[in-house]
């Protein structure tokens, strides 16, 4: 204890009465390193979170209820109104929709010369009013209007399907420039062919590529009623964790397949892995830069004071006391760097980006910073460990020198 007290005394005096420019430089560099690490990892995590939020808001919701898989696989969920009424009784359910999924192709005779341009895809049968509460897809119409519940001869396309809204034109992936009011022909997998008037085209910035008709029209094509290919649920995550909702819904409908949005991410999950990897590399580089900075500055400082270190040893001050004094100094610089860096990130940059969002994809994704308590903890811990080692190694290198060599230089 007395050794630590002496170390602390030497460290405090060195900090308070040492070279102020050196102190400021060290703290400044460490602040920048920590800021860099937290900002980059925050941005990368923010991109992923924005992407997830966009997926949830545009296409999948939080939880999907799918038709029975076992013991026999069913194509549709029956009595969807009863099921949805039951789900609605769970506290925290924010919105819910059902979809009919129909495979088919869309054809468009742009030049009215009998030359049809066709694409294949999934056509969704939706309840327009509910859809509007659940997903923002149809709130960002580029042209025309949304579907009405009673529409049976109208269709809403994505800009990517319609083609010509700034997207690169690729044969077979869009209709070549279909516009609101144009007629397109839909051929469903059950052989039914319908002609629709394009009622609206929405901005498909996220690339979800969905085509919508009303559930009423879908039921007439499929010759079914009160069913669904999928029920999607949006929940209040502030009220309860996702797994809790998932379990409750599953418990209500044990024969249906209940999944949360993460199970439907597919290839998007590899995007997260790539972001995590970049974040890890950037973090490691930042910690390394910080460690080298502290190492060099502590080493130079210790070398400059090696005569003083020799004198301290000569008058009977233990080597450990001297080394610990440098470690305390190093940790002080590190803590200051972390505090200033954290203050800038959490007190300035994060609120600034929330108050003035920078759009990554206009109307869909904004640049935001996202942090997890684990990520912050790991960042601080790795910086502290780097600070400890960068204080320990150079000070030991100098302090273990022979007393006379240290005094004579």
């Amino acid at each position, binding site marked *: 204890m*007395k*050794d630590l007290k002496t170390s602390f*005394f030497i460290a405090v005096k060195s900090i308070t*009465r040492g070279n102020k420019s050196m102190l400021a430089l060290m703290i400044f560099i460490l602040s920048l390193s920590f800021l860099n690490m937290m900002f980059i990892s925050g941005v990368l995590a923010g991109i992923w979170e924005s992407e997830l939020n966009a997926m949830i808001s545009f296409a999948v919701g939080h939880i999907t209820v799918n038709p029975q898989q076992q013991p026999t696989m069913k194509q549709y969920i029956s009595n969807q109104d009863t099921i949805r009424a039951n789900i609605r009784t769970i506290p925290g359910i924010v919105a819910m929709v059902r979809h009919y999924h129909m495979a088919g192709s869309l054809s468009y005779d742009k030049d009215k010369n009998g030359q049809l341009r066709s694409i294949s895809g999934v056509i969704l049968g939706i309840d327009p009013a509910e859809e509007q509460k659940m997903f923002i897809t149809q709130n960002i119409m580029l042209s025309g209007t949304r579907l009405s519940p009673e529409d049976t001869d109208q269709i809403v396309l994505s800009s990517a399907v319609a083609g010509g809204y700034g997207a690169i034109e690729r044969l077979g992936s869009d209709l070549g420039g279909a516009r609101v009011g144009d007629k397109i022909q839909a051929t469903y997998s059950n052989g039914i062919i319908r002609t629709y008037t394009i009622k609206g085209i929405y901005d498909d910035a996220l690339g979800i590529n969905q085509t919508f008709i009303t559930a009423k029209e879908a039921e007439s094509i499929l010759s079914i009623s009160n069913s669904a290919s999928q029920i999607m649920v949006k929940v209040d995550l502030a009220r309860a964790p996702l797994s809790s909702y998932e379990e409750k819904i599953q418990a209500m409908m044990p024969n249906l397949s209940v999944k949360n949005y993460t199970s439907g991410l597919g290839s998007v999950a590899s995007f997260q892995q790539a972001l995590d990897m970049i974040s890890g590399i950037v973090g490691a580089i930042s910690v390394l830069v910080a460690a080298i900075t502290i190492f060099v500055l502590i080493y130079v400082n210790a070398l400059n004071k090696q*005569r003083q270190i020799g004198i301290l*040893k*000569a*008058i009977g001050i233990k080597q450990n006391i001297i080394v610990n004094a440098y470690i305390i100094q190093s940790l002080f610089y590190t803590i200051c760097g972390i505090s200033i860096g954290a203050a800038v990130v959490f007190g300035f940059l994060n609120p600034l980006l929330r108050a003035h969002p920078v759009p990554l994809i206009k109307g869909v994704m904004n640049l935001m910073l996202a942090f997890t308590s684990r990520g912050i903890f790991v960042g601080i811990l790795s910086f502290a460990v780097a600070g400890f080692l960068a204080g320990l190694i150079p000070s030991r290198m100098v302090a273990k020198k022979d007393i006379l060599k240290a005094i004579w230089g």
Partner: protein
Amino acid sequence: MIKVENLKKTYPGKVPTPALKGVTFSVAKGEILVITGRSGSGKSTLLHQLSLIDTPTEGEILIEDQNILALTDSQKTKFRLENLGYVFQEYALIAELDAMENVYIPAMALGTPPAEYEKRAAELLRIVGLGERMDHYPSELSGGEQQRVAIARALINNPKIIFADEPTANLDTVSAKVVLDLFRKLKKEMKQTIVMITHEEDDLKYADQVLWLKDGLIEKLGKVK
């Protein structure tokens, strides 16, 4: 107090350099031993061995009958802190500490209670004539004043022996006399044992015993009349 038997020190290198070639002498408690001799005679080497700053190649050093060369490095550090005081040739103070702090840092390391070491440091600074300059930093003190602070620091843990390596070498005549008078006062009032190096003929009058070294050997050892 100190018994030295056949002490030898050879510095290693391509050509090993013998600095002490077998030195034997003793110092009584409360005595001032002055080591003198020409440059390269081995004065500093001898002092470094006696004060445990360096390790001899051969020989024996007994302090109050304890063979201090048998101690481990950490035991030597502890022994230095508890039993020895050291005054360097140059003003060896810690720049970031004021006079008071420079004096009491060995006592703090020893675990002395703060109230006690602060009181003793203040008392020692008064003894060395710096009672009014306790809060001054080394850069604000003259060479002689810094050396007196170093002497106060050497005394803080009530050492059995003070070692002083040419403590007046960088001082003007007046300051040098103040420091040496202080040593004499310490010997007289506190029965302090002091081993000091000097190359000044005038300083020999402060010694009870003078050890003349020449080429690593004792040329003469005797009392000063």
